[in-house]
């Protein structure tokens, strides 16, 4: 990690890169930032580190951090203004909901296709889902006591 022998003025975000992760570094940065933003941990207007400062912290190149910021900007999650740095964008509530729904839908589609490959019928898939919901329900109530 870079030595902080002078105070870094800018903000910092808790991102970490894993060498074991098969995803390229810019994807890792992107998905971690996206999660922070969509979960509301990074509020609209929050200033993000410059591409150079982030590259420094992660010991990667600015090509990688620039690519990650550009993708997030294209998704409308962050905004970069000349001379004012990069901030978290104001994301409309329905868009936040849609994005959360997307993640859930993707997970379900994945589960369905795994089930299909394993030869499950529609009935059986529904049963699995019901059981999972039930387990979740008992887990939650069990956790309270």
């Amino acid at each position: 990690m870079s030595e902080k022998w002078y105070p870094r003025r800018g903000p910092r975000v808790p991102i970490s890169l894993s060498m074991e992760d098969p995803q390229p570094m810019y994807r890792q940065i992107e998905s971690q930032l996206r999660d922070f933003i969509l979960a509301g941990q990074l509020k609209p207007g929050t200033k993000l580190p410059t591409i150079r400062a982030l590259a420094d912290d992660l010991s990667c190149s600015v090509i990688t951090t620039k690519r990650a910021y550009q993708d997030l900007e294209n998704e409308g999650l962050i905004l970069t203004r000349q001379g004012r740095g990069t901030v978290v964008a104001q994301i409309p509530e329905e868009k936040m909901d849609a994005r959360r729904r997307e993640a859930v839908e993707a997970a379900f589609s994945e589960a369905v296709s795994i089930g299909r490959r394993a030869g499950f019928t529609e009935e059986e898939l529904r049963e699995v889902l019901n059981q999972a919901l039930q387990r979740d329900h008992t887990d939650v109530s069990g956790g309270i006591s």
Partner: protein
Amino acid sequence: MTQRPVISLRDVRKSYGAFELGPINLEIEPGYIVAIVGPRGAGKSTLMGMLMNLIRPASGEITLFGGVYPEDEVAIKQRIGYAPERPSGYDDLSPRVLGKFVSRFYPGWDQRLYEDLLAGVAMEPDEKFGELSAGTQRHLTSALALATGPELVLLDEPTAGLDSFARRQIQGGISRFMDDERYGDRTVVFATRVMDEVRRVADYVAFLVDGRLLGLFEKDALLDGWKVFWLDREPGVTFPERSSSKATTRRV
């Protein structure tokens, strides 16, 4: 790279006796830190010298900021901070005097960065350059180049012979230079033999071996490539020497 290059070399050649450099073709876009990596005698200093017009290429074309030597020399040099491997004429001057002297030529001189870089290694502002240790001289030379505050900084082995603490200072100075929000895209090109330095600060890496340039690579793509190589086969180990079952279990 799509922006207008800061540095552009086309078929640049130079030879000294049996040593031949080039032909070198290289384009460097603003906004990046580029490491020129190679062993001693690969031609790194010659390349740096040609970028500063201290050495004339035998053939080929060198363009800096769209200008050429010698016609645009003054305009080009005002935009470059250069740290040679061994500066001459500094020996009787102190860090304080050197700073004052150099700052006069550069309107963008960053006194604060200069002082911070020197304070980081507890340098005596009034000690003469010639009486400083080799490492401290190197540190001071790099600090001068970074503080000139231009658009392009050329550093010839900026951390050779420095201890790890001083090395981090210079590396920190490079990134602070690049991240100054008062300025637009700046560029640093440094020559090095230290791979750790490349890992820490470079965006792009150019390998120079025996006078030949082996292309310009994105550092992160390169590191991903190494990862694959290391996992596949341990360095220095060839597969036939190892039982195949063991080689397989070592794969991830």
